[in-house]
Each structure stands twice: as C-alpha cells, then as structure tokens.
C-alpha cells in the first residue's frame, strides 16, 4: 500500500517538524500572572484589591519609615528635626532599649542576664537539636541553678545545695534498690524533700560562711522588660510540659479517683481566665500559706503560669493519646511491659510526636501570656512602654515602642513555630 501511496502523493514529509516554543501567554511570568492573578473575574477583583491594600500600606508607612530618626533625645527634638514631615522617632528605642530589655536591673550588672541568655542557648541546644553533643545535656540539667545564681545573685551555695537534692534522691534510690524497688522509689521521693526542708538551708549557710562565693543580690522587683518575659516564659515552658503529661496520663487513667481529680483540675484551670489566676497569686496567696510566709512574686507568677499552661498541655497531649490506634496499647500489654515502661517506650513518644504542633502552640501562647503580668505590677515590656510614655521626654509617642515590642515577640514566637515545623518534618516517619 505504501508504494501506491508514495506514488500518488506529490510530497511526503519524512522528518518531524521542530518543536515550536509555546505561545508567549503560556510561558514564564505571563503564564504565572494569568494563572495566579487574573484567572477569572473574582480573582482579578481580589488581585486589584490586594494591590490597592499593599499600595495603601506602602504609601502610608513608606515616608514614616524613610524619615526614621535615631539621634534624638526627646520627642520634641524629633519633631524639630522632622519639621512637620511624617517620620518614625526611633530615638526612644536608642534611648531606652536597656529598660525595655532589662527593666530596672542595675546597669553595671547587665552582663548577668546577657550571660544567662547565652548559657540558656547553650543549654537548650542539645535538647532542640540532636546533632549537638549529648554530653552537653549535663549542662542543661544544671542550668536552672546556674541561671538562678547569675540572675538573682546571693551565695552560690544555696542553688548548689538545692540542685544537690536531686543527686541525694538519686543516691538514695541506688542505695535502697538492694532492699526493694518500692522502698527505693519512696526513698527517692522522700529523701530529697527531707534534704530541702531541713538540711539544704543550714548546710548552705554553713558553706556560705566558710567559703563565701557570691554575687551581689538583686531583688525581683528590679527585674523587668523582656528579661522577665523570657524568665517566666522559659521556666513555664520547661515545667508545664512534664506537668501537662502527668495530668494527661492522670486523665487517661483507669483509676476513677485520680481521673476525676485530674479532670476537675484541668477543667477548672481552662474555665477561668489567666488574669484571675494571676490576681489570686498576688492577692490571695497570703491567705493560703501559713501566716508569716511570703515568697517572691516572680515565683508565684511562674507557678500560676505553669499550672495554667499545664492544663492546656494536658488536653493537647490527651489529643495525641486519643489519636493512637488501640493496637499500640494492646501491643504494649502483650509485650508484658508494665505501665510506666509502656508509656515511656511505646505510647508517649508517638503521642508526643502527634501533638507537637499543639504543644508548641501552647508554648507560644504561654510566652505571649507573660505580658499579662503587667496587671499585677511586674514591669514587662508593655508595662515599661507605659512608664516610658509617662516620661515628659517621650510623652505622646507610641507607635515606635509598640512596633519594637511587637517585633521582639514576633521573632520569638515565629521562631518557635518554625522550629515546630522543622521538628515535625524530622520526626515524620510515614510516607504520605
């Protein structure tokens, strides 16, 4: 057939045509714009509105940012330099950054919070990233005592002997293990308590008189600014996760009494605003403690914030437990693991992995909630911004202060949420 065909047709192409480039509206930027910005009437309207919004923002914010003034010692000086033009007066940040960061902490001791912050990063590194040498975890373990000593000062022996309580407890556990497992557990709980209540104080005082190593003591009411936010936030974060896990386990428990007490606690804390708990800490705690005792307001706030975040944490972790298939529980049982081993080796790792986003959201919420301490008289950044604005030099200025505070919070919180996404990606084991 082909022969006849070749004879009848005048011309037959025996090579393929070279491929043509796609039409200009189907490639590159033009195609992207057509598909993403102008694919229909609704989309076009949205694009126009979006561009208008961006233009409005730039047109209003642009001059204000462009005319930024850093070298001014008061708002009136700023206004003189600007001569009626719109412009940001960042002089206030330059003038008062140390207050916003450290509150009324003594100026010559600023190295102490800075050093603590650096050490905090070192202590957090092995917990956050597994590439960091594991031995650094020992430093993470002693960091709370180190931080307390550097920030508050006083004798070095007090935090040392408080931290020693854990060592004493561990030693008691090892020593009593020969007697029986139960006695060892009770001993590991009871001996540190005895140590803290009766021995740590006197021995600390004794050592303080023999070998006085100490930093000047700085009282809590001189703390302020982002320093206090970070102290409360980080301590709350570190304490609320274990407490929240315990509460979640309690709520999951088969023992009705434990379960209902945990449920009652969680629902009570979740039902009231944090502000009422903080007021309780500042107004009512004196009623609940033995007459004559009073303890540090920062410590009270940390306790309340921790309890508050722990209740939310418990619900997040419970969600993780609920998402585990029943088979995991049954597998743990069939392997003959006891309750704590099953939790530690099989259930908790999976439940925590599922609830990472929720846990980090709770952390971020806790860190943002530290701003509420301003209502009970602790000068956090927002409280200090009010104090700075009350100064006659900076009276009438607010955007620059609020922008600075918002930026600092944004960096912390956004950093945490990015880390949670990194962790989620790293721990992802299913291939979906």
């Amino acid at each position, binding site marked *: 057939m082909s022969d006849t065909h070749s004879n009848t047709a005048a011309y037959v192409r025996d090579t393929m045509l070279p491929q043509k480039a796609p039409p200009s509206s189907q490639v590159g930027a033009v195609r992207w714009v057509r*598909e*993403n*910005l102008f*694919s229909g009437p609704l*989309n076009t309207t*949205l*694009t126009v*509105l*979006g*561009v208008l*919004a*961006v233009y409005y923002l730039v047109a209003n914010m642009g001059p204000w940012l462009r005319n930024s003034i850093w070298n001014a010692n008061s708002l009136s000086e700023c206004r003189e330099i600007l001569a009626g033009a719109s412009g940001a007066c960042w002089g206030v940040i330059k003038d008062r950054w140390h207050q916003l960061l450290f509150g009324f902490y003594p100026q010559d001791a600023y190295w102490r919070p800075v050093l603590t912050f650096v050490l905090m990063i070192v202590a957090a590194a092995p917990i956050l990233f597994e590439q960091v040498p594991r031995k650094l975890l020992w430093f993470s373990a002693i960091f709370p005592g180190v931080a307390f000593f550097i920030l508050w000062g006083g004798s070095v022996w007090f935090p040392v002997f408080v931290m020693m309580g854990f060592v004493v407890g561990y030693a008691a556990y090892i020593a009593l293990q020969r007697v029986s497992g*139960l006695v060892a557990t009770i001993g590991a709980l009871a001996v540190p308590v005895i140590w803290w209540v009766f021995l740590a104080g006197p021995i600390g005082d004794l050592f303080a008189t023999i070998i006085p190593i100490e930093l000047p003591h700085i009282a809590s009411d001189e703390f302020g600014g982002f320093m206090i936010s970070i102290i409360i936030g980080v301590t709350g974060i570190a304490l609320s996760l274990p407490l929240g896990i315990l509460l979640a386990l309690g709520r999951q428990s*088969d*023992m*009705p*009494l*434990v379960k209902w*007490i945990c449920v009652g606690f969680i*629902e*009570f804390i*979740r*039902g*009231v*605003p*944090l*502000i*009422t708990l903080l*007021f*309780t800490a500042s*107004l*009512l705690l*004196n*009623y*609940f*403690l*033995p*007459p004559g005792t009073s303890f540090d307001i920062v410590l009270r706030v940390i306790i309340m914030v921790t309890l508050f975040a722990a209740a939310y944490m418990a619900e997040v972790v419970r969600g993780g437990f609920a998402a585990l298939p029943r088979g995991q529980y049954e597998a743990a049982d069939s392997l003959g693991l006891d309750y704590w081993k099953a939790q530690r080796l099989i259930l908790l790792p999976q439940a925590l992995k599922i609830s990472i986003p929720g846990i980090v959201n709770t952390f*971020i919420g806790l860190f*943002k*909630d530290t*701003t*509420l301490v*301003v*209502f009970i008289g602790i000068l956090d950044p*927002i409280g200090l911004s009010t104090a700075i604005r009350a100064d006659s030099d900076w009276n009438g200025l*607010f*955007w620059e202060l*609020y922008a600075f*505070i*918002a930026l600092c*919070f*944004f960096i912390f*919180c*956004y950093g945490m*949420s990015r880390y949670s996404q990194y962790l989620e990606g790293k721990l992802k084991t299913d291939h979906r």
Partner: protein
Amino acid sequence: MAMTSDTPSSSFRLSMLIYDTRYRSITIQIVFLFLITMGFWWLVDNTLVNLAEKGKDIDFSFLGARAGYDINQRLVDYSSDSIHATAWLVGLLNTIVLAVVACISATVIGVIAGVLRLSNNWIVSKLMSIYVEMFRNVPLLLWIIVFFAVLTEVTPAPNAFRGENPTASMLFGDAVAITNRGTYLPAPLFDRSLGQIDIGVAHLSSNYLVILAVIIGSIMGYRALQRRATVVQEATGLRPTTWWKSALILIAPIVVVLMAMGFHLEYATLQGFNFSGGGYIRNSYIAMWLALTFYTGAFIAENVRAGILAISSGQSEAAFALGLRPNRTMNLVILPQALRVIIPPLISQYLNITKNTSLALAVGYMDLRATLGGITLNQTGRELECMMLLMLTYLVLSLMISGAMNIYNNSVKLKER
C-alpha cells in the same frame, strides 16, 4: 494426663496491696486521696487561721450593700445607688455582649481569611499569610493597646466636626461619627413604647423582647416553609417556588411590628464641643472588639484552613464526577465534612474570646473583672469572696459555651455505627 496446676492460694496477704495489680490501684488511689485531702486541708486551715488573724470572715452579704460607683456602659438599669450584685450583673452582661459580638465577627473574618489563604491568587494568599502570622505571634494585650491608641490618638476630636469647613466629617450621611471620645451612632427609638418588665435585679425593655420574639418566629416559619418545600420536592420531584413566600415571612412581620411601635432613628448631633443624642459606643469597647476579632480571627483562619485541607481531594473530584457545580460541591460535599474538623477548635476559640475579654482591664472597659473583681473587690476588701465569685462566674460561662457548642458538634458529627 491431668496437668492441673495448683491455683494460687486466694488468701489475702498485706503485700498484695502493693504487688497484686488487682489491689494496687486501690492502694494508689487511697494514698493519692489522702495526700490531696491533706494538701487541701492545709490550704483551708491556713486560710481560716489567716482570716481569723485579720479579723475577717467569709461573708457574701456585701453583695446586697450599696455599690456607690458608676459604670459607664450598662445594659440594665444601674446607678451608684444600686447594690453590688447588680454591678456584678452589669459587668457580666458587658462581658457577654463583648464576647458574643467578637465571636461572630471573628468567625466571619477567620472564615474569609482561611479560605483566601488557600486561594491560588498569589497576592491575596500572601497578604492573608502576613495577616495571620502577624496577629498570631504578637500578644493580644499589645493588639488591644494598639487598637485603643489608634482610636484615641488618630481619630479626630468632636470639635473637628464643627464649623463651616470641618476637618472631619460624619460617615453614611451624618449617621456615624468616629471621634477620639467614642463612636456616635443613630439610636433606635420607639414612639409607642411597650414599657419595661421588672425581673427583680433589673428592667428589660419589652420592645426588644417583642422584636426578638418576632424574629425567632419568622425564622421558625421560614424553616417550616423550607421543610414543606422539601417534602413536596421529594414527593413530586419539583421544588415549589418559595423565594417570595420566604421573603414575605422573613421581612413583613418585623416591618409591621416596627411600624406599629413607631420605630425611628435618632441621629447624634453636634452641640457645643460634643455630640449629643443618638447612640454612643465607647472606644474601650471598640478597641476590645477589634483586637479580639482580628486576633482570634487569625487563629480561626488557621483552623478553617486546616479543616479544608483535611478533606481529601478525592471528595471534590468525586463531586465533580457526579456533575455538581463548584459552589454546590463546596456547600454539599466539602463544607459539611470540613465543619467536623473545624468545630472542636472553634469551640476553644470561642472560649478563649470569652476569657480574653478579661484583658479589658488594659483599656478600662467595665467588664465582669472590672466591676466584681475590680471596684467591688477594692471597696469591700473582700478579696476571697470576690475572687471566688469571679472565677465561678467565668467557669459557669465557659462550661455553658462548651456545653452548647458540644451539643452542636454532636449534631454535625460523623454518625458511625
């Protein structure tokens, strides 16, 4: 081959309380209860000792005493001669009115932002991402203060509206004036008012009760009409035309009632240096409302986005394969499934709004915390009682919201066997 093993002797030994799992949980619970009771008793005992030392007692009779302070926003009758209990109620209503309005607007903003963030329009989705991240990562308290600063420092003073060439002008044809003292709106007035009903602690306007009843009745009538139409459609295959009937049922009764009561609007007018007449909303309320709306809206946007993303694309493909148009796909297939994912976190956002209204302290809005937990507490010096009542009120409020929303959640939940 009788291989019967000896059954363990069932006699009870004391060590079984610890080593036998049947009894161990009882032991643990008893120890736990003992410790909790001891701790609790320690707190109560301390409190009693401390109270006795200060010469105080626990007494709620202060609630019946004259309050002696003014509240600048009140939904029920209140004056400084009213009792503390009424102040408590006024504060509670202020909290509720802020929370309800903020919940509604935050839901609207959140749904819009969440859907737009998924849009394939690059500019819009990026703008929405910026909005969400900006509000989620900055404390609510800062947003409240910022919105309050915008309202009090940027908006014009009332006298800017004065004169031949005023520097500021009212919106919507002399109806709304946004000033640094607050926003002035037209107020609804009734020529033939129906009077008020006394419910003990406060008076209720029967006008609004009647309007509410009529609106509820109209909606119930509308739903009955729709149900009838569905029944007819299922029987005959044809849906009867209902739009004019439903328009009549929804609009006519309320118009008739409003006309019968002589409804008209009173506009705020500039007199001297300030506006008078009309309705007036304080800046503190508006700042709280805007901050709660945009802050919680950002969280709801994320919930909505997660809910829509949780529905597998096979669902919409199946709907298209069945020949459903995009809007019907959204309404009949995607949204009902996404709602199940969205509602539980939405409940906790509503609870958060309710609890976050207590931040009104920052701008001086007279909410529950400011009346009962603020001025009443300071005036009477009854911290313990006031804080207990305050926490209890918030607790009841939260439990009611979560209860109501859980009922709704159960009604849309996937019904599994």
